[in-house]
C-alpha cells in the first residue's frame, strides 16, 4: 500500500467524522436523534437500509467463505432480500403506523413493560457483541491489506470515528452519510469485481474449471445437496432472514424513519432488489480466490484481503486506497447504525422504562453518550477475544443469531401480531426457553463446549446422565457442520410450542393490549394512508399473490435439493427474481 492509498483513506475518515458534527444541527427532538424525524424518502431509505445491511462481513467474511465452501453462501444475502420484500409488504407498514422507535416498544404495547425492558437490555448486549464481530473483521482486514499489523490500533480507529459521528449526529447523520457510504462501497466493489474476474481468467473459464476439477462442482452449485452451506443451510438462513427483516432493531429502526408506511415498504423492497445483483460483487471474487489460491487459507477471512493486496496495486496506484474506502464505508455505516440502535434501546427502552418520570432531552443525550462509550468498550473486547480464538466471522455470527434471535421473532411477529390469546407470561417463557434450547443444541454438538459446559457440571450430579449425553455428543459431533444449521429451527420450534402452552396456563391478556391491531387510516402528516395489507387494485392483488407464491416455491425448490432434484437451483433462482419484481409492482400500486 502506497502513501497515496493511505492519504485517500485518511481523507475519507476525516470527512465522515466531520459530517457527523455538521449534521447534528438537524436534531430538534428525540425522534430526530432516533428515527431521523420520520422524514425519509424511498431511495434514501433503500440506501440507508442497504448500507446498514452490508458490511465487511459481506465483502470479506462471505467472500472468504465462498473461497472455501463455494457460491451457495450467497443465499445469506439473497434470502435476506426475499425477506425484505415480505417484511416490507406485510409487517413493516403495520409497525410503522404504531409510530414506535424500537421492537421492544412494540412488545410493551402488545405484552408488558417488563418484556420491553428485558428485550431492550438483551438486544443491546447482542448488538454490542455483533459490533465486536464487525470490528474484528475490519481490524483483521485492515491489518492484512495495509501490512500495518497493529490490530488493536485499527480497532480504536474504527470505533472512534463511528462512535463520534453516530453519537453526535444521531439517526440523521446515519441516514445522510449512509447514502454517501452506500455509493462508496458500491464503487469499491465495482473496481474489485472485474479485476478479480480478469485475474481468475474470466467467469466462463472459472465455471469450466470447477466443473472439471474433481470434488469441486459444489463450488458453483447454488443449491447443493451436500456440504456445509447446503439446502438445509439455505432453509435455516431463510428462517433467520425472516427474523432479521421483521425484528432486527438496526434495520427496522431505519425503516421506522420512513415518511409514511408506503414509503417504508418501498424502501425495504428497493433495498432487497438492488442487493440481489450486488451480492455477486463480493461472492464471485471469493470464487476467484478459490481458483487463484487453491490451497486455501487457515482463516477464510484472509482470502479477500489477499486478493486485494496482490491484484489491485498491479493495475493502478490508488486503486487499493479507493477499494479500502469502500470497505471502510461498508463497515462504518453498519457500526454507526448499530451504535445508534444500541443508544435507542438503552435510552428509550431501558433507561426510560426504569424511571418513573419522563427524562428531559438533555438527560437522554447524556444516556446516549455514556451508553455509546460502554458499547465501544464491549465491542472492542469482543473483537480482541475473536482474534485470540481465531474464529471465522461468518460462523461466529451464525452461532449468535441462531441461538438468540429466533425465539424473539416467534414471540414478536408470529404470536405478537397473529394470535390474540398470547399473554406476557407465554411470551417471556417462549423467549427464554427457546434461547436455552438453541444454546443447548450448540453445546451438545461441539466436543469442546460439551465437555466444559455440559459434561463437567452434569457428571457431578448424575453419572448415568453424563454417560448418556457423552454418547449422544460422540454421535452428533462428526456432523456438527450440518447440525449447526438445525439450531435456529430447534430454538424457534421450542418457542413455537412453549409460548402458547404457557399462555394457556395464565389469564387472557387484557383487551387494551390488543390495541396494537388498531391502526389509523391517516399518515403522520394527515395524508390518506392507502397502503393496505390486501391491495385495492387487481394488479396490486396479483403482485402480492405472486410474492407469496414465489416465496413458497422458493422454499420447496430448496428442500427438493435433499433428493438431488436437478432443477432445484434454477427454480429457486427464478422464484427469488419473481418475488423481488412482484414486490416492486406491489409497492407502487394501490
Amino acid at each position, binding site marked *: 500500500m502506497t502513501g497515496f492509498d493511505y492519504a485517500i483513506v485518511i481523507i475519507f475518515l476525516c470527512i465522515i467524522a466531520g459530517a457527523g458534527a455538521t449534521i447534528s444541527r438537524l436534531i430538534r427532538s428525540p425522534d430526530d436523534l432516533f428515527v431521523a424525524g420520520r422524514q425519509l424518502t424511498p431511495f434514501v431509505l433503500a440506501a440507508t437500509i442497504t448500507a446498514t445491511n452490508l458490511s465487511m462481513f459481506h465483502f470479506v467474511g462471505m467472500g472468504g467463505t465462498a473461497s472455501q465452501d463455494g457460491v451457495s453462501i450467497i443465499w445469506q444475502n439473497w434470502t435476506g432480500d426475499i425477506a425484505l420484500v415480505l417484511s416490507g409488504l406485510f409487517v413493516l407498514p403495520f409497525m410503522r403506523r404504531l409510530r414506535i422507535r424500537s421492537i421492544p416498544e412494540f412488545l410493551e404495547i402488545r405484552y408488558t413493560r417488563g418484556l420491553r425492558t428485558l428485550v431492550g437490555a438483551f438486544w443491546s448486549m447482542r448488538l454490542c457483541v455483533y459490533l465486536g464481530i464487525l470490528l474484528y473483521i475490519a481490524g483483521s482486514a485492515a491489518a492484512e491489506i495495509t501490512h500495518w499489523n497493529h490490530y488493536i490500533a485499527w480497532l480504536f480507529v474504527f470505533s472512534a470515528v463511528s462512535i463520534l459521528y453516530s453519537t453526535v449526529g444521531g439517526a440523521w447523520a446515519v441516514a445522510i452519510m449512509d447514502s454517501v457510504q452506500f*455509493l462508496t462501497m458500491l*464503487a469499491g466493489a465495482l473496481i474489485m469485481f472485474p479485476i478479480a474476474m480478469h485475474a481468475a481468467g474470466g467467469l466462463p*473459464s472459472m465455471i469450466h474449471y470447477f466443473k472439471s476439477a474433481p470434488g469441486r462442482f459444489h463450488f458453483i452449485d447454488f443449491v447443493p445437496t451436500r456440504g456445509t452451506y447446503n439446502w438445509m443451510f439455505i432453509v435455516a438462513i431463510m428462517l433467520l432472514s425472516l427474523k432479521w427483516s421483521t425484528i432486527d432493531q438496526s434495520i427496522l429502526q431505519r425503516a421506522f424513519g420512513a415518511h409514511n408506511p408506503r414509503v417504508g415498504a418501498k424502501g425495504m423492497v428497493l433495498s432487497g432488489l438492488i442487493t440481489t445483483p450486488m451480492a455477486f460483487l463480493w461472492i464471485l471474487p471469493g470464487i476467484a480466490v478459490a481458483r487463484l489460491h487453491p490451497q486455501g487459507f487457515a482463516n477464510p477471512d484472509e482470502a479477500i484481503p489477499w486478493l486485494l493486496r496482490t491484484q489491485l496495486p498491479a493495475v493502478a496506484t490508488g486503486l487499493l486506497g479507493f477499494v479500502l474506502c469502500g470497505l471502510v464505508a461498508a463497515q462504518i455505516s453498519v457500526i454507526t447504525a448499530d451504535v445508534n440502535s444500541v443508544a435507542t434501546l438503552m435510552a428509550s427502552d431501558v433507561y426510560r422504562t426504569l424511571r418513573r418520570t419522563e427524562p428531559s432531552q438533555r438527560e437522554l443525550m447524556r444516556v446516549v453518550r455514556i451508553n455509546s462509550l460502554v458499547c465501544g468498550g464491549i465491542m472492542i473486547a469482543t473483537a480482541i477475544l475473536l482474534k485470540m480464538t481465531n474464529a471465522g466471522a461468518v460462523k461466529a455470527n451464525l452461532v449468535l443469531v441462531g441461538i438468540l434471535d429466533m425465539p424473539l421473532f416467534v414471540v414478536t411477529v408470529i404470536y405478537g401480531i397473529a394470535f390474540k390469546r398470547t399473554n406476557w407470561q407465554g411470551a417471556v417463557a417462549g423467549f427464554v426457553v427457546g434461547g436455552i434450547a438453541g444454546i443447548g443444541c450448540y453445546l451438545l454438538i461441539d466436543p469442546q463446549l460439551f465437555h466444559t459446559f455440559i459434561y463437567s457440571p452434569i457428571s457431578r450430579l448424575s453419572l448415568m446422565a453424563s454417560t448418556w449425553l457423552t454418547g449422544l455428543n460422540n454421535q452428533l459431533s462428526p456432523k456438527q457442520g450440518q447440525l449447526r444449521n438445525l439450531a435456529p429451527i430447534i430454538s424457534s420450534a421450542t418457542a413455537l410450542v412453549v409460548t402458547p402452552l404457557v399462555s394457556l396456563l395464565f389469564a387472557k391478556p387484557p383487551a387494551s393490549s390488543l390495541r396494537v391491531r388498531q391502526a389509523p387510516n391517516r399518515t403522520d402528516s394527515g395524508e390518506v394512508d392507502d397502503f393496505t395489507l390486501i391491495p385495492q387494485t387487481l394488479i396490486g392483488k396479483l403482485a402480492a399473490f405472486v410474492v407469496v407464491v414465489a416465496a413458497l416455491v422458493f422454499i420447496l425448490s430448496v428442500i427438493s435439493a435433499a433428493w438431488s432434484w436437478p432443477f432445484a437451483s434454477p427454480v429457486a433462482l427464478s422464484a427469488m427474481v419473481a418475488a423481488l419484481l412482484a414486490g416492486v409492482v406491489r409497492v407502487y400500486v394501490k
Partner: protein
Amino acid sequence: MDWITLAITATGAVIFCLWIVIPIQEYRTIFQRLRQRDQDGSNGGERHP
C-alpha cells in the same frame, strides 16, 4: 471482459447512477419539509405514543 462479468458490472453501474440522481431530488424534498417544520415550530406533525 466476458459477457457475464460485463452484465454484472453494468447492472452495478446503473444502480450507482440511479442512487446518485434520485436521492439528490429526494433530499431536496426532505430539507424543504425540515425548513417548513422549523418555520411552523412544529415537529412535522409527528406524534409519539
